[in-house]
């Protein structure tokens, strides 16, 4: 018996987990073919998603009224952004509470589209409030107002956030 058990042990150790042997029983060709088909459907669904976004944009946010607000964090910022509130012409457009993953994505250089909506052409007011925590644990909140003009083309507004500090503006609106 000892011989048999040892052989099992050594085989298991030398090769791989027991599982591998079972997995190998599956035809590799079948797996590859299935994998290829999964990749194909992913590609198709991506194309559907793209077409759907296009349709949604046309239907819900036509060019002449579309306004999109993007949020980014200034480089080398290590403050913790907790939430952002966006107001357009004094009315709440959206507010967002950040998860750890989202904050990390912003810190790595990602840009969040926080709001897409409709406004008539002409001059408007954008109100931005950010709430966060500094490295030393101090909580802060900052609000700024900006003017922007909406033309007939879609309007993209980029907001860059930085923790309050010397020489920093805190909230900046992209200049276009």
């Amino acid at each position, binding site marked *: *018996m*000892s011989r048999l*058990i040892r052989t099992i*042990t*050594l085989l298991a*150790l030398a090769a*791989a*987990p*027991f*599982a*591998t*042997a*079972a*997995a190998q029983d599956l035809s590799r060709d079948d*797996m590859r073919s*299935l994998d290829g088909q*999964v990749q194909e*459907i*992913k*590609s*198709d*669904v*991506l194309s*559907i*998603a*793209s*077409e*759907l*976004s*296009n*349709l949604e944009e*046309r*239907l819900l946010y*036509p*060019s*002449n009224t579309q306004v*999109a607000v*993007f949020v*980014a964090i*200034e480089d080398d910022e290590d403050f913790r952004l907790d939430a952002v509130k966006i107001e357009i012409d004094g009315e709440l457009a959206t507010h967002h509470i950040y998860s750890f*993953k*989202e904050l*990390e*994505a*912003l810190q*790595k*250089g*990602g*840009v969040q*589209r926080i709001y897409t909506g409709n406004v008539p052409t002409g001059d408007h007011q954008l109100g931005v409030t950010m709430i966060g925590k500094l490295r030393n644990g101090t909580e802060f909140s900052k609000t700024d107002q900006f003017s922007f003009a909406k033309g007939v*083309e*879609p*309007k*993209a507004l*980029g907001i*860059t956030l930085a923790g309050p500090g010397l020489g920093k503006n805190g909230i*900046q609106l*992209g*200049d*276009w």
Partner: protein
Amino acid sequence: MYRAPFSVIGLLLIASLATSPTKSDELKDLYFGEALYYAHQGYFFEALERLDTEVAQYAGLDEPELDTLFYHIDDAEFSLGDFELRYRMHHRAGRAIRAVLEGAVDEVVRNDAAYRLARIHFQKGQMEDALLALERIDGKIPESIREDIEFLRANVYLAQEKPAESFEVLKRLQGSKSFGGFAAYNLGIAYLQDGQRQQAIEQLDRAGQISTDDPAELAIRDKANLVLGTILLEDGEYGKAMPYLNRVRLDGPFSNQALLSAGWASLSAEDYERAVVPWSILAQREVTDGATQEAMLALPYAYGKLDIHGRAAIHYGKALDAFGTEVDKLNESIESIREGLFLEALVREEIRKNKDWVINLRSLPETPETYYMMELLASHDFQTGLQNYLDLADLRKKLVSWETSFDSFDDMVAIRHDHYEPLLPDVDMKFRELDSRLRLRREQHKMLVRRRDDLLTTPRPEFLATPDEMAVLARIEYIEQQLEDASTPFEGALVARMERLKGLLTWTLETEYHARLTEFENNLSMLDEAMTVAQTQYDRFVRSRQAATHSFEGYETPISRLRARVSEAVRRVDLLMKRQGRQLEIVAIDELMARRGRLESYRDKARFALADSYDRATQAQARSEVQ
């Protein structure tokens, strides 16, 4: 979709590509940044969807240099390949990365792309192609992947069974911070593969002593010791094997196997008392582990060798009970998989929120099957199948939610149609009136501009006469004509009076000409402003009219086409999920059946050995009573 022609001058956003080895320059394209935002969170479907659209739009531009993506196009194309790779779309990723390689891109980006392409080939088992891609790497290499490239190169050689080719690379990498432990271990395996046993032993010995506190390196150190111990054990060098097996940490991932082998090494050396020690520890551990189950059988065997048959019988009895319970558990698990519960558990979202979700499956009471499948879940082929299944489940969820949104779209279009349709005839009638009035005004305006331009080149004071003056001029002309036709004795006096009147008027027109021209000019510029306002209102009216039509017209075809595409995609996803799920279930059931078979065999042996131990214990007791 209309593309916002914005520029982000002064927006100080620094983007670091999820993929790129270096931080990119100032971010100029918000939509590219948005794709990165999703990619950095691991949402590669969303990232791909956005970046795909952005790059496709860019490709269709007549003047791409005016677009904000122009500054990032190399990074964007590279990222496309990278996201596809991460979303397990190797076919498309390979194409995208090859496109980057063939494009006029920066050396650093090209080398990074070549490395990623090599990695795809390696994962697909295409070693020749992997090597070819690695050979394309030339010139400046991103520092962050320099060692990754070398490590991959060594692994390709090993996979090609050309261990000697990997020696130099692995020797160099032994000093690496990231790959030191792995390179040391792989070098030992390379020597082994090359038939250089002694070199292999020395190298694995070194790999088994590296100083580190990194969990991954600690694990590979344990593995080096375990492999070395096993090699020596297989060769019958039991005494030599022991120190290496003892080096394996008791709380590491290889500890069970090391304890088991340590027991066998001692037993083989006929040191039964020593064999009892590791097996006793191991027999107390997680009963579903293969090594533990084997130890439960080996421990009483060692007691038997020590002639402690009573204790051996007790342990055989425990093993028998445990194996029986586990066989029942495995039967339940197999049944549970057949009922589809395993796949149901896998797609539960709350489980997958945690990065250790595979491990957490063990804690689910309703998924007993996962107890025995930790190794299976960790195997590459199963992982690929599992990830595909999960991706399909996610796609299905998306498609189903889109299906419901089509009805809302239809409603929205219908409401807009019902609202605008009755209003439009009246609006159109007013528009036609406005249009004809504006056209007339435009013509009049043009005529006045022409006159002003003529006056600037050829002064014509009479053109600037007031209506009264024009009436007087006309009257004078009329009287002059009358005088020409009439014959009267006062003709001379009348002509003189006429001339005087005419002279007076001409004097006024000539002397006030410049002032009047200036006033005309001012009036015209005021008219220009009014015309601009009118034109703006006209344009706004036209846009609003078009927007009203566009808000409900032209959606029927795309909505119905998309609806059909989504419905077809759901059907295909369902089919693929069924096939993929079935495949996973088969592998899982095979694995569990293999484990059950092994346990049944252990149970039979335990049953036989239990009886044998009782006999021997009884005989020993009888002997001692006789004595």
